[in-house]
């Protein structure tokens, strides 16, 4: 199905934040202590230069130990309560890669909304249930490698994660002959999956975030209680649906009544909708009680607004 969506130029502030995030999250000199911190971005901590610990890998480690990850729940929960999934939209390096690949001029596709549920299944099965079921539980807490080997690597990180394959697996395979000679069917499967994911995100915007990212699934649980929310002014909104057209994750929905949701849990708070809204003050982003960004009337009619009006 061809996508009838509008593509917008990258938001300079967001692109800057993403690039700063890419460098900061992969700055080796932070990593000695930084890897005690779990930020909600998909940045594999198996990569030597990774500065923080991946929450998914960390949750998996706790599941293998059959321990409740209070520390990770607290950290992700505080971030989610504060800014929802904004880390997905503004800091995640794999999100940056997807945004960049989508800008390639190819035919674009629209993913059915049903794929959004797949990431919850992956989170439940490959991050929580399977590692808990096969984990060593009660093993020596410092015997991390023993725990992982006993579990057979049946988890999201070992079987699926394309971010890990790209940032840690591939460099490791290139640099070390012992890793190349030790490649198993799982290694080839992950490489193939990486190729499929990268190919898909060229065609469908943020396809991995929508369909496969268990971290996105985790943070989506906080989207409704987050203090960072969109707000529509019904008196000013002309229901042109431009905000819906530019949304990269098809999360935006124009509320019919007061109190109705402004976006689904897929919203990464990229604020492209606020930027593109042609009516001043009709759509804004609010953090707690404060307006962070509000739509402004364009100085000149924008091509995207004219196309939407003509539809």
């Amino acid at each position, binding site marked *: 199905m061809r996508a009838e969506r509008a593509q917008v130029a990258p938001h300079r502030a967001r692109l800057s934040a993403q690039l700063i995030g890419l460098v900061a999250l992969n700055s080796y000199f932070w*990593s000695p*202590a930084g*890897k*005690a911190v*779990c930020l909600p971005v998909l940045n594999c*901590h*198996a*990569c*030597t230069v*990774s500065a*923080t*610990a*991946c929450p998914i*890998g*960390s949750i998996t*480690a*706790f599941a293998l130990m059959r*321990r409740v*990850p*209070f*520390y*990770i*729940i*607290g*950290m992700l*929960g*505080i971030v989610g*309560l504060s800014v929802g999934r904004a880390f997905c939209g503004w800091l995640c390096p794999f999100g940056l890669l997807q945004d960049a690949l989508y800008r390639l001029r190819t035919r674009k596709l629209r993913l059915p909304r049903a794929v959004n549920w797949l990431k919850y299944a992956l989170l439940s099965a490959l991050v929580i249930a399977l590692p808990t079921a096969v984990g060593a539980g009660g093993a020596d*807490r*410092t015997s*991390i*490698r023993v725990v992982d080997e006993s579990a057979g690597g049946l988890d999201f990180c070992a079987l699926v994660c394309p971010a890990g394959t790209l940032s*840690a697996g591939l*460099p*490791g395979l290139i*640099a*070390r002959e012992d*890793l190349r000679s030790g490649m198993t069917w799982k290694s080839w499967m992950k490489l193939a999956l990486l190729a499929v994911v990268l190919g898909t995100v060229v065609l469908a915007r943020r396809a991995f975030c929508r369909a496969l990212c268990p971290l996105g699934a985790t943070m989506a649980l906080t989207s409704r*209680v987050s*203090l960072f929310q969109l707000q529509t002014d019904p008196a000013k909104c002309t229901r042109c649906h431009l905000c819906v057209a530019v949304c990269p994750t098809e999360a935006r929905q124009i509320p019919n009544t007061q109190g109705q949701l402004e976006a689904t849990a897929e919203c990464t708070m990229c604020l492209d909708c606020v930027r593109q809204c042609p009516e001043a003050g009709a759509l804004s982003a609010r953090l707690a009680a404060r307006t962070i960004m509000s739509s402004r009337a364009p100085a000149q009619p924008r091509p995207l607004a004219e196309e939407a009006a003509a539809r």
Partner: protein
Amino acid sequence: MLTRRWLIPILLGALLVGCLLYGVYMGDALYVLKNARAYCYT
């Protein structure tokens, strides 16, 4: 001024901070650090 609107975020925030501190107390932060560093190829 505290209103009902802020009650849930405040309570939830307090609960999450409690989780975080409890996790630190139980040594979870150290475990996360050790696990992340153990997975490095170098």
